[in-house]
């Protein structure tokens, strides 16, 4: 708590003499607010805002060998040159295609399953609701690295599971469905719990009325429960889109076991490769900025859609 004094000192207006009691109350509240908010404000600045600006700055420079190359590399301003490099790089294109396919397959399956299961558990006929919701939720508690490891073992030829599938889950064409399955396994339960929690806030008298009007379970679910939790579904969609675009750990873990995952398989792997293997910070920063931009645009789009729907 001692770290926050500088921030407080700079952002509080200079005390202008002693004021009366009510003013003192308000000032006390304002000062307490600053004290309580400062630790997070500092963290947000140092670990999010400054890095974002720094990435923007880095993305405009590249390392050049100066003169005859005696004095080592020096940073040279190349404006949008790194962006041009990234946007014309076929490896980046391939990573975008992979993540786009992943998003298009994973999100409908995962959120569809989550919603379906939430509606099932919420339906009147179900016993042992707690058992079902907890067991489906458990994979969320498994670290993604370990999720990847468990499934990669299940995907290897002698595990018994791989033999049941019509394709090789670690082969060139099987790798995308395999990664979709890993992410789906991990996230279905979490989103199911979010939806189920929202469903329980649906007023019971509305459901009673629907039942009195002769609506069956499926019809009540589809035309009353689903529309009422639509805002929750849009929030879940935004978070899933942001998370899916960052796809990194699953392909990286699989990479240790199969050559089907390239070192630039997803945009995040591309950034990792550019920064920490190729050492090209400018190109990595430009790719990071593009990734953040796409993710911001997509979440803005989803939120606009949700605002229009709820109007």
């Amino acid at each position, binding site marked *: 708590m001692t770290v926050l004094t500088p921030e407080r000192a700079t952002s509080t207006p200079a005390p202008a003499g002693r004021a009366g009691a009510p003013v003192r109350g308000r000032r006390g509240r304002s000062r307490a607010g600053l004290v309580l908010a400062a630790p997070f404000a500092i963290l947000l600045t140092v670990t999010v805002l*400054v890095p974002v600006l720094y990435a923007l700055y880095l993305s405009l420079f590249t390392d050049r060998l100066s003169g005859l190359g005696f004095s080592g590399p020096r940073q040279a301003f190349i404006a949008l040159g790194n962006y041009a490099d990234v946007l014309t790089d076929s490896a980046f294109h391939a990573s975008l295609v992979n993540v786009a396919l992943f998003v298009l397959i994973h999100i409908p399956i995962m959120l569809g399953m989550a919603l379906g299961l939430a509606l099932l558990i919420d339906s009147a006929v179900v016993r042992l609701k707690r058992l079902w919701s907890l067991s489906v939720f458990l994979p969320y508690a498994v670290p993604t690295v370990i999720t990847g*490891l468990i499934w990669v073992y299940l995907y290897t030829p002698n595990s*018994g599971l791989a033999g049941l599938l019509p394709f090789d889950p670690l082969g060139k064409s099987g790798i995308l469905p395999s990664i979709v399955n890993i992410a789906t396994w991990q996230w279905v339960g979490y989103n199911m719990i979010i939806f189920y929690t929202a469903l329980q806030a649906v007023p019971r008298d509305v459901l009673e009325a629907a039942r009195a009007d002769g609506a069956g379970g499926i019809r009540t679910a589809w035309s009353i429960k689903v529309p009422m939790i639509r805002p929750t579904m849009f929030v879940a969609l935004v978070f899933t889109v942001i998370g899916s675009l960052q796809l990194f750990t699953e392909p990286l873990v699989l990479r240790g076991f199969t050559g089907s995952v390239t070192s630039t398989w997803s945009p995040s792997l591309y950034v990792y490769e550019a920064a920490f293997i190729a050492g090209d910070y400018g190109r990595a920063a430009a790719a990071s900025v593009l990734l953040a931009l796409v993710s911001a645009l997509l979440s803005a789009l989803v939120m606009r859609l949700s605002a229009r729907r709820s109007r």
Partner: protein
Amino acid sequence: MTLSPAAATSEASPRAGGSATRNPRKAGSRWTSRTVVHVLLVLASLYAVLPLIWLVTSATKSVGDFSTTSAFEFGEWNLGANLGALFTQENGVFLAWIRNSLLYAGLGAVLGSLICAGCGYAIAKLDFPGRRALFAATLAGVLVPTTALALPLYLLATQLHVVGTFWAVFIPLLTNPFGVYLARVYADAAVPGEILEAARTDGAGELRTFFTIALPMMRPGLVTIFLFQFVGIWNNFFLPLVMLTDPKLFPMSLGLYQWSTRVTQFPQYSPLVITGSLLAVVPLVVAFVLLHRQWRSGLAAGSVK
């Protein structure tokens, strides 16, 4: 509802689902639909739990049994030997990984959720300059993809000479914008303005009021923030991967990943990776099961908005 590849391999679900919708009004349809619903739930639970059961059975097998017995069958009981090998490998570095994970996640989540509580409470209940701007920045912070931050954070840490240290991983993971958002919701819902007014009339200072009155009232919500931040840090992988080179500072996820990259060349790493994974999963599963009442009610309060 679309089924995942694993669940789709069993044929029971589509056939059973069809019969329920075809004749919903016949006598006994309630019984049928109840059966169908439960069959679907059993399938979904099996999909979720079977890989975890595989983890348990595999952790008890020797390297030989692991490749010769099928996935869900027990071989010769070898868990003790596996654990012994796990904790002696590389001079017992796994013990350090457990300690590190507990430090990063435990300390990080305690501090992080307190910081969230303070900020969320301040935004909800106290007027201070920059309040709106801070809340807007917090919401924007929720949306910034963390993988886009890894490189600039790494370079900043390099310049501050903290790269490769505990702090390079610990500090960035404290930042939890979504936790602040939730804390604001909890403070709004759980701390009535009249009680704060009463405390003020009694002459209690604002900070004292927060720590002795508001914080206890926000407790159920804070358990939720704590638990989810704990999982977030425990499961985080990208940041330690980028920041750390000394295996003694690794959290379990990074250490197990590093061992896993050797498995194809050295199969004897398989039991280490699998037994280690089991140990990394058990505490979280236990925590979620034991605390489920708290986090469920916390999520409920958060989702109502």
